[in-house]
């Protein structure tokens, strides 16, 4: 990409996206392009990171390893649902990922956990996210039993309006009470150490 076109792109994006200034956006674009690498199929320029590439980025750079979560995070990044994360989506996503406010993070997590997009996390969704969470549990005991129990307990605590499912308000309420609940149903944000490493790596030229 040409230097000038990148500058203008960075300028437009930085106006739309919070938390990053223009130079930082530039750095992120550079990083994006680096991650994009050579187009997979020659002739057709890649418009963005496709699912597989994004998965390995999440895996290696941000330490998000659970397949379900990786999938869901991809969907939150890929706002226009075209199967690739383009430059703008990348920077928008990272804005939350790296520097998101508590509110933004809560929303991000909530949408990750809300599979069917009905603005509620249902029992079934929780169960789905927690399946395979137990290992080495007894042969005699049904592993699902424990998960079901845990889901009920969790729901009981977090469902403030008692409608049997978690709305965004419920979720927000709980997380504000106890920030440990932010990623309660699975890691979908990078941890502080990884954020620091990534920022250092990407923004090193600025320092």
């Amino acid at each position: 990409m040409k230097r000038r076109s990148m500058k203008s792109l960075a300028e437009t994006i930085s106006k739309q996206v919070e938390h990053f200034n223009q130079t930082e956006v530039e750095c992120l674009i550079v990083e994006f392009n680096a991650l994009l690498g050579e187009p997979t199929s020659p002739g057709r320029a890649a418009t963005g990171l496709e699912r597989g590439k994004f998965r390995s980025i999440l895996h290696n750079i941000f330490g998000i390893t659970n397949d379900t979560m990786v999938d869901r995070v991809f969907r939150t990044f890929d706002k226009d649902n075209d199967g690739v994360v383009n430059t703008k989506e990348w920077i928008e996503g990272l804005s939350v990922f790296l520097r998101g406010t508590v509110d933004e993070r809560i929303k991000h997590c909530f949408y990750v956990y809300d599979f069917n997009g009905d603005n509620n996390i249902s029992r079934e969704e929780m169960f789905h996210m927690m399946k395979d969470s137990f290992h080495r549990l007894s042969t005699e005991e049904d592993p699902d039993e424990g998960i079901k129990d845990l889901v009920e307990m969790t729901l009981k605590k977090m469902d403030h309006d008692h409608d049997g499912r978690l709305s965004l308000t419920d979720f927000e309420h709980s997380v504000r009470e106890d920030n440990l609940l932010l990623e309660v149903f699975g890691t979908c944000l990078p941890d502080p150490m990884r954020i620091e490493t990534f920022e250092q790596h990407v923004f090193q030229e600025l320092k």
Partner: protein
Amino acid sequence: MDNQLLSQCLKEIDGQVGLDPAAVRNEVELLKLLCSEGEKRVLKSVRYTSDYVFPNGCRTPPWRQALNEICYLVIEPCDTETLHITCSTAGYFLNGGIKQEGEESGYERTSDTYEDLEALLKSTSPHFAENTNKQESAVQELPSTQEIQHVKSVDAKEQGQPKLTMQDVLSTRYKNNFELFPLWRTLEYRCGFGKAKENTFSLSESSGEEKSGKIQKRTTGMGAKPKVKAGFSVSSLPGCMSSRKIEAEKKKLSESSGEEKSGKIQNRTTGMGAKPKVKAGFSVSSLPGRMSSRKIKTPAVAVPVDAFSETSDESSEEEEPARRQDSNTAETPEYYLIQKLVKYLTHGNQMVTVLTLYHMMDLNLMQEACQLAIWDLGGLQVLINLLDTVEYKCKIGSLRILRIISHNVHIRRAIVDMRGLKGIVKTLDSPIKQLKALAAETIANVARFHKARRNVRRYDGITKLVKLLDYFPNLAKMTGYQENDVDVALYGALALWSCSKSTKNKEAICKAGGIPQLGRLLKSPDENMRIAVVGTLQECASEESCRMAIQTKDMIKDLLKNLRSDNDELQIHCASAIFKCAEDKQTRDLVPMYKGLQLLVSLLSKADNKELLAAVTGAIWKCSISMENMAKFQDYNTMETLVGLLIDQPEEVLVNVVGALGEFAQIPANKTTILKCGGIRSLMKLLKKTNQMLLVNISKVVGACATDMDCMAIIDELDGVRLVWSLLKNSSADVQSSAAWALCPCIMNAKDSGDLVHSLLGALDLVVELLESTNNEVVVSMCAVIAKIAIVKENMAILADLGVIQLLTKLASTTDDKLRRHLADAVCQCCMWGDNRTAFGEAVAPLVRFLKSKDEAVLQSTALALFELSWNPHNIITMHERGVVKPLIECMHSRNETLQDAAAGCVRNMRMMANANRDARLYK
């Protein structure tokens, strides 16, 4: 050759043995366990007659080994006389009492032969029989022990050593030592951290192998009711679990104990009527984290079943009287909830772990039952292990629980015993502030006893904690500071406070540069922070190296500023920091600069808070060591207030008040003030206390006041001399010497002091006795007292009878100036009477050496003593031989007239004698 023959012989004997030495040894070891302390003990003592063990395990002399005798025992039962027992391959029997080896008559058998020791003891000691039966009855319904044996050997491989009752222990005697260790391991194993698995195996296997046939034989014939067994183990639990609970436990254990072994269990337990699982339940149920009892070498077997694992438990505690108040962890719904949560914690992935930790926060974590349940159910170990993971959310969750439950004494100990501090200290390095704060807070709670504090230091925790103080924002640029940062620093300070109670930690804090950091935090607007900081500082102030760092201008200023706060706790710590620091002159001079003296005096009015009063009076005491300060104190009428505090105060306060009065009494005018306020009277009453520090201080005041005739009159009237004299009987050398110093002016100034001393029964004996004390200060003070006593002829005569001359002569070889001075004084005074001058003949030569001293006081006393001695011609000859003249002439150069006179007098006497000698020769 002889050796060869002997060992060959021994081998042969060995071959014939039926009851082998190992079996005997085990039986004896077991009996030794029964000799526990307390009412419930069964035997007083069990011991061998000989400590030497032959290679074949026998303790008898070889010629007796030939008769198949293995060893001799001396057992003291509680009710009958001492039993002398021979253990031979044929069995046990009483002998005629072997007192000395080689005395053949003692070896004879005087009773029937019994198959085992227990039977013998039962037949001879009704008490023993009764107690063992009692314990047996509790176990009667156990499954046949033969079966237990089977299971046990398998079982041991699975989960370590099950806890057993008296009877079981008797039958499986060797396993005692391993008992609790594998249990602990098992816990780890169960928690899915099976690092120690192999360990457990090897240990318990070895214990299993030792099994001897005899044991099995003896314990057959008991009813086989496995259920009761489970019931028994329940009773050993703190929280009496129902059998339902056992079922659950059972299940879990058998599951977690690994499939690969289960087949084996099945094989080996055939022939046993009961289900193998019962066994599993058994050991699980007695599992609850009793790790701390690992240390105990002698499990309280003699104590009836119920208290089995509890009583002996924490007996080796040093600082906190930790004894678990058990048996009220009733089977609450919460208990099951905890059990479930711990299970999730153990088996869940990271997500479940965080979620479970979240739910655990809902438990009533401040409640002891809940805390202990978490521990007992293995949760504590899991929480600690979580700190080793990389997942910061798990760590946060875990520490949030640990910091709360660590308020419990037992949990604290358990955390340390599980080496939990290592992980916690390591967490201080985390870049996440919340984690740092949590870890520091937990350390603040845990480091309440010595071992914990040592561990924190060993893991380099002190340095890390000091680093946390950096997080406190620089007040100059408060912008951009976060609440988090303050928290980190606050908990860091709190943790340091806890740690600072160990001497080495104080040094470590100082070394890590903690003192200036703490000084910076003294300016914090947060009162809690200041309390923690001042608390740490005042702890550290007891170390000289730390004091040096504290004594900066600013810190004293800030301490005094905080002393003005209206928070009692803060005031207490500030005052005691000043108390400790004012040992050094620099601080003493700084305190008045910031109007500290006035402040301290004004705080004396807060007499209700004894702790504060103690600290404040201490600070006044130390500050008054400087004369300038004392003058200021006098302006504030401090002495009157202090004298008022001599009545109805706790000893901590009294020590300091009296100490301060001791300083004030250095000035003559103040003695009258003390007298006028009735101080002497109060002090005399306090002489009956036992606090040694207090007695030392009282002696000092009394000694100082006794130089004032008015005061002395009152002391006399109140029989004070006798009271002070009786302090010489105190065991503390400090008290002895300070009392002796106080006696000197008393003897000088008391009315009819000669009669007084004479009338005190045994008083002079005591003085002479203490002259042989190993403490130099005591000896010095006794010399001083003797110098005063010897003024009265009759008393001197008694002293001489008690051999004081010889003792003083013996002391003359000293090189200590202080002792030399007072010794010379004593010699000088003694010489005044009778033929003591002659008696001191041997002391002359060493006394001449005293003249080499640079100390003028020594020179003066020595010169005086030599002058007295020089009235005896033999002494003069000795002096002359030792070259006394030259130093004496030097002494005459001195400006000290007494010294001049004495030296000159001595030389004069020498000349006189020389002249007389010459005359005698001339006019013969």
